[in-house]
């Protein structure tokens, strides 16, 4: 039984299921650094998944699907940014509104464009091509694990490195972080925090678009209602887990992907999967608790230290 659950397929599935989480989390951590909590990622992924299918179906190419999803991601990112930054609306209200809008709009369009309820699949939807790293072929273990994935699997890994370098090694990345932490200082330095926030929000929309396309044009080529299935929230959990650090967030997303894949394997053999599915959510609360407790302890120590010095 254990062999049926924990095997190479499980790890391969982990890589697949973690990819949309990684992509969305990378987008979300950019806005997080710029000082915006984006809970609209859920809706952004859903829109990406839908418009990926639309583009692929009507233009007969997965690239067109991806481009359309990215375009929609940019629009939604701009919308989010406009409301939160320029109109100073509450970020979480706008996030919820975007999630609702995405849920309603995708179902509405699913029915008015394709005339179906629930799910749409068609042989005319062109899936994303599978990629393989040449030199890994023929190496048994690595071949099954790391080959034959969609391009976004590799893109997501590349993005982890790129975003790390961007955030911590380039002036632009430092501006982005300053936009969240010290907006006034950034302003004084002649860089507009507003611009940096806009950039982070648009990039978040784009990455969530990628995540959606990976879902709907990746291993299964179809769109189903509410296909994002809480992935936006799990991505947020990964960001919190990883302290918004790209590498740590990546590891957290991989871990959550593993539990997701494990849940699916457990279901196959008839073991309730609900508890493994809970892990990302409960884990996030535990992490928040530990962080908060440490913070309190430090504060206490600081206060005690002060009175000692006096």
């Amino acid at each position, binding site marked *: 039984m254990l062999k049926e659950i924990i095997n190479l397929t499980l790890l391969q599935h982990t890589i697949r299921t973690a990819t949309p989480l990684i992509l969305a989390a990378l987008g979300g951590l950019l806005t997080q650094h710029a000082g915006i*909590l984006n*809970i609209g990622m859920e809706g952004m992924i859903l829109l990406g998944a839908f418009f990926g299918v639309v583009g692929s179906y009507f233009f007969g190419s997965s690239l067109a699907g991806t481009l359309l999803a990215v375009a929609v991601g940019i629009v939604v990112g701009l919308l989010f940014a406009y*409301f939160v930054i*320029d*109109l*100073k*609306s*509450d970020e*979480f*209200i*706008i996030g*919820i*509104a*975007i999630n*609702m*809008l995405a*849920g*309603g*709009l995708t*179902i*509405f369009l699913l*029915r*008015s464009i394709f005339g179906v309820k629930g799910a749409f699949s068609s042989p005319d939807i062109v899936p994303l091509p599978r990629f393989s790293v040449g030199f890994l072929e023929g190496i048994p273990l690595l071949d099954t694990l790391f080959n034959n994935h969609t391009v976004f699997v590799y893109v997501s890994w590349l993005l982890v490195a790129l975003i790390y370098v961007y955030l911590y090694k380039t002036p632009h990345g430092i501006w982005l972080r300053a936009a969240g932490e010290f907006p006034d200082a950034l302003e004084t330095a002649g860089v507009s925090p507003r611009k940096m926030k806009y950039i982070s929000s648009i990039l978040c929309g784009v990455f969530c678009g990628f995540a959606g396309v990976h879902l709907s044009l990746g291993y299964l080529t179809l769109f189903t209602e509410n296909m994002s299935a*809480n992935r936006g*929230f799990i991505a*947020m*959990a990964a960001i*919190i887990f990883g302290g918004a650090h790209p590498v740590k967030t990546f590891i957290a997303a991989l871990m959550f992907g593993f539990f997701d894949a494990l849940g699916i394997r457990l279901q196959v053999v008839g073991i*309730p999967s*609900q*508890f493994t*599915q*809970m892990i990302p*959510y*409960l884990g*996030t*609360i535990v992490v*928040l*608790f530990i962080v*908060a*407790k440490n*913070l*309190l302890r430090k504060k206490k120590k600081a206060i005690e230290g002060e009175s000692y010095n006096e």
Partner: protein
Amino acid sequence: MKKKNIEYLISLFLSIFAALVIGAFIMWANGRNPIVGFAALIKGAIGSKYNIATTLAKTVPLILTGLATSISFRSGIFNIGGEGQLYLGAFGAALVGISLVNLPGLVGIPLALLVSAIAGGLYALLPAILKVRYNIDEVIVTIMLNTVAVLLTGYLVNYPFASDVGKLGATEVIGEGYQLSRLVRLSTLNTSIFYVIVITIIMYYLLERTSIGYEIKMIGQNPDFSRYGGINVKRRMIFAMVVSGVLCGIAGAFEVLGVHYRFLQHISPGYAWDGMLIALIVKNNPLGVVLMSLFFGALKTGSISMENATGIPSELIAVIQSIIILFIAGEAGFKSKIKGFFARKDGRKKVGEKNA
């Protein structure tokens, strides 16, 4: 009425109107006649006794979750976990209803409501404590707890409490004593509406007429000031959050006791989210919650008839609702933008006059 309130009402109506216009435009873009669509919508919402009853039935969970949001948001602690509290409350009520089957309704219904209130309240207590003691963001915690509750009840209803008739994702039917009677033939409107009226009056009184309600409002507007004023901010925040959870739990109970007569795995299509949006739109005013819930309930009910009559998918309503919330959330920003625009125009004119 204060000038601010009138200004708000104007922007509220403008927002709704603008969202409906966008809805009309979407219908038109879909090749449908918007006038026919809206006529079918109105007829479907209030066209007959059955339609009115269905609208009222849809309003029940919206009012409860809307009031739940009002009290928590007013106190500045954001309960986004209504959906999870609703699921636990619903399961709690069902659990009573399937284990003490023969209890008469007079005892059984209050007991089931009590259990669901406790379940919802406790589930809200946890994030409240994490917030006031450890300063942990309650928005994130309650979002995470939502899914945990849905998964937990999903497990319970598929394994230990699964109905004997195969895997339906449902419990057995609750005892007859627990089943709230239906008021209008074929519609799911049931006696829970009377409970909701009582609860609404209590909540209105609590929020608008008691010192607790006043303190809650103060805390939401200015916690530091409230603290200096001698209000126990932490205790009031916990109170607001627990009451919020209790109301969501009861909303879940009524879905079980009045509508489905059993717990279902996906018992709520997002009532708590709708309720939250309603409260946000009316700025947490309890009477506003009732009116807006009726409006949203009517939209939901009417949209089904609209779909049947004209083929316009009923989800259009969800789109319209979210556009309303976007406009309302952007209200203050839009206003200052418009004012700024006119000020600039005015200024330019004055400059022009000088030059002339």
